[in-house]
């Protein structure tokens, strides 16, 4: 009896509640709902590590420069810049009348405060690197910021693009590392409404934004922990856009007349690389180096043969279901002008690969199907490792094993815990071949540096590659102020490492995203890079009327 009554009450409450749901819904603001599989690690721009955090920062904060989807930088918070003849002093004129979301004015003082905070806070993982060349930072009474560098660098824009301008009046009273910054008061085109870690980030438009107010009223990033849920959410219209999806879902989503799937180079390019241990005994790091690499990998002929024996298109079709482009060097196509598009990749040709090895003296003497080194001391059996948290690497390793088997090379494959991998990799050089990857800055300097001799003992060089000509070009490009000349140097460097077959780059992965075209329009789709959630797109997106 009692149970019955309780049940009736429960049903009544449920009915009431459900009818309440229906009652709301008049005169709603235009809300764009975005589904993603991550969440910012923290809203403290100095302490944050994850891309999701940076996506939010570029919406909420202003920076001196804004990175465009074509890979170039545009002045944003500064209206003009002048550079001294020696390339050491940059004077930025900050826009007048810019206000933080709490109504306080943003001045050169805030910019200087932020840059000094980034430079002087030891607990910030990356900021020390971006502010490394700043010798002096000052504000002038004319709302200018004067940055004096310790040496001329060609890419101050790439240094400043991640230095978000924080309100001094809030941050000067906080511990720079521990401050959670949940309110995230900035001056960008969107302002923070509510942030629930691992649930959602709720933003509203900043109607006073100097670059023009966004056309949608609110943007909500909602976290979905499973990728299947993400796909299902856009299919059923619970979200209007998703920033990632499993490639297996692409074909089904393409069938949907209301959904547009877009692919292209990612905004923050990443590279998957096949690393050959090429460290020579002379270059073996004295403190940490074990240097147990297979000696045959020091021979360019072997690496070249392996490059010819690698069917990159097949790898892309199997591992990425076609959503990638064949890789050439460590500098990905997503880096725009820095990517050397003139390089022609080694063609897939098993016969040629076999011929190269044969000519170089690697013959299968004992007839077991695996070639031996010319002196007959070792067979071409290589260890290959990859981080155990990688989804694509096991398939890639399997394909390589199959492909290279055709030229008489045997692979002993084993996944390793990422930290174990770090400890065998570098600077220990206790491996033969590793499948791994890099994330990249918009500027090529970072990825170019990992192939220099100087980085062998630091652990940043994974290959142990050493070439004085390359090192010299690296030094030149790092201080070449002329863009066109620097580009030529950077292209030349790629040519060198390509010819030396320092790495085999199986592919450059593409970004695959989707949005509801029945609801929103105006995304930037005609640029080399695709990133629907980038600020440059979100500021101009509007609802379909």
């Amino acid at each position, binding site marked *: 009896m009692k149970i019955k009554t309780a049940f009736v009450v429960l049903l009544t409450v*449920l009915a*009431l*509640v*459900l009818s*309440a*749901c229906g*009652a*709301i819904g008049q005169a709603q603001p235009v*809300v764009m*709902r975005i*589904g993603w599989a991550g969440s910012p*690690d*923290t809203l*403290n721009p100095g*302490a944050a*590590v994850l891309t999701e955090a940076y996506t939010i920062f570029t919406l909420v904060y202003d920076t001196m420069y804004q990175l465009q989807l074509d890979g170039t930088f545009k002045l944003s918070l500064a209206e003009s810049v002048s550079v001294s003849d020696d390339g050491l002093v940059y004077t930025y004129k900050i826009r007048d009348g810019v206000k933080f979301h709490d109504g306080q004015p943003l001045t050169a003082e805030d910019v200087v405060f932020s840059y000094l905070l980034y430079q002087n806070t*030891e*607990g*910030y*993982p*990356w900021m*020390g*690197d*971006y502010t490394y060349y700043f010798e002096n930072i000052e504000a002038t009474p004319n709302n200018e910021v004067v940055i004096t560098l310790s040496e001329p660098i060609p890419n101050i824009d790439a240094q400043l693009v991640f230095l978000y301008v924080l309100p001094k009046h809030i941050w000067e009273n906080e511990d720079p*590392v*521990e401050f*959670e910054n949940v309110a995230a008061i900035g001056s960008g085109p969107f302002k923070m409404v*509510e942030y*629930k*870690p*691992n*649930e*959602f980030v*709720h933003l509203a438009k900043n109607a006073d934004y100097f670059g023009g107010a966004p056309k949608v009223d*609110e943007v*909500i990033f*909602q*976290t*979905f*922990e*499973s990728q*299947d*849920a993400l796909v*299902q*959410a856009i*299919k*059923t219209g*619970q979200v209007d856009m998703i920033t990632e999806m499993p490639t297996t879902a692409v074909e089904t989503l393409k069938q949907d007349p209301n959904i547009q799937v877009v692919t292209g180079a990612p905004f923050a390019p990443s590279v998957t690389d096949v690393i050959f241990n090429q460290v020579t005994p002379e270059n073996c790091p004295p403190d940490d180096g074990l240097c147990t690499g297979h000696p045959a990998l020091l021979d360019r002929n072997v690496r070249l043969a392996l490059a010819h024996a690698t069917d990159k298109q097949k790898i892309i079709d199997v591992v990425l279901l076609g959503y990638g482009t064949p890789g050439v060097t460590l500098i990905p196509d997503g880096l725009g002008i820095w990517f050397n598009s003139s390089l022609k990749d080694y063609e897939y040709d098993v016969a040629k690969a076999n011929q190269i090895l044969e000519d170089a003296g690697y013959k299968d003497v004992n007839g077991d199907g695996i070639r031996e080194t010319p002196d007959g001391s070792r067979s071409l059996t290589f260890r290959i490792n990859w981080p155990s*948290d990688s989804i694509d690497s096991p398939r890639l390793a399997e394909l390589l094993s199959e492909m290279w088997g055709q030229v008489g090379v045997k692979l002993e494959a084993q996944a390793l*815990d*990422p*930290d*174990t991998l*770090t400890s065998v990799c570098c600077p220990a050089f206790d491996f033969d071949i590793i499948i791994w990857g*890099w994330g990249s800055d918009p500027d090529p300097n*970072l990825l170019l*540096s*990992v192939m220099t001799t100087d*980085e062998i003992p*630091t652990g940043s060089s994974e290959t142990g590659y050493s070439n004085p000509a390359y090192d010299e070009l690296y030094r030149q490009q790092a201080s070449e102020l002329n863009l066109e000349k620097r580009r030529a140097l950077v292209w030349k460097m790629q040519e060198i490492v390509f010819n030396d077959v320092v790495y085999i780059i199986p592919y450059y992965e593409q970004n695959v995203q989707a949005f509801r075209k029945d609801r929103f329009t105006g995304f930037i789709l005609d640029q080399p890079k695709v990133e629907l959630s980038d600020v440059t797109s979100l500021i101009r997106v509007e609802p379909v009327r």
Partner: protein
Amino acid sequence: MNRYRYLLKKTGWALLTILFVLVLNFFLFRILPGDPARALTRDPRMKAEAREILRVRFGLDKPVINCFETLTPLKLGDCRVNPFETQFFIYIKNLLQGELGISYKTNRPVADILAERLWNTVLLIGAGQILSIVVGVAFGVFAAWKARTAIDYGALITGLVAWSLPTFWLGIILLFWGSTHGFPIGGKATPGSSTYPLLYQIGDVANHMILPTLTYIIVYMGEYMLVMRSSLLDVLAEDYILTAKAKGLSAFQILKDHAIKNAMLPIVTLIAINLGFTVAGAVQIEAVFSWPGLGGAIFEAVESRDYPLLQGTFLLIAVSVILANLIADLTYSYLDPRVQTE
């Protein structure tokens, strides 16, 4: 007198177990391979000095405990260091002060994260538990009452199948089905609804709970049903039930007044134990439906090697399981005084 000693003994054991968990909890994560300072950022922009600063900040530069620098890889160290300068005793000291540490990944106090998520998990799993108990017990009684009929076998098979369904798979199936029928499939509330009227918000959360709760009920009711059925069948075979029948009582009266009460004992134990695990959440259900609970926290913490967060969640779970067991023990002794003398 006897009762007092029993109480003391059980509480003592519970405290000891918690202490053991504290120690295990610490060393377990130190034995796992991996350096959290490395896992945090594998990036060439992260210079060795910056990494060192992070290590200092999280106390990872100190020896694990006297004589041991690190456990994996095993590196022996100085035995004469001040114990209070080792990671282990700092951890114990902080715990005693109620400090659970700072999450490596999110830079927030672990206690804050746990407090947020505990409530979400208790809400979801609590509702799931209660409903699966009600449904499971009801089906169990019904099946036992109709023992060895088509209904009984039907219920038995349904219970067994439901109990053995993989949670993750069932969750995905319900997610696919639910999303096409207008049910929300992620999170605990519609983002941005916090300014709406309270009634709407309650309805919204209830709406978000439907699919995960349904998954939970289907998977967990089987257990209650099977235990209730067999326990009731045992009771129904007792002589006093025969007597009741002979007195001419109706089947309903027999069940209600004589059988069910006595058959409830095993269920009470099961409920007490499962309630303890309520806090652990259901990692898989929370992951499928992006429910921001403790299960999800464990999932994320494992991925990013967030030791303080892992330790915090494990501790919370261990303590609640031990407490629930203690309560079960004490309730039992009250229900059935014979237990005390054993």
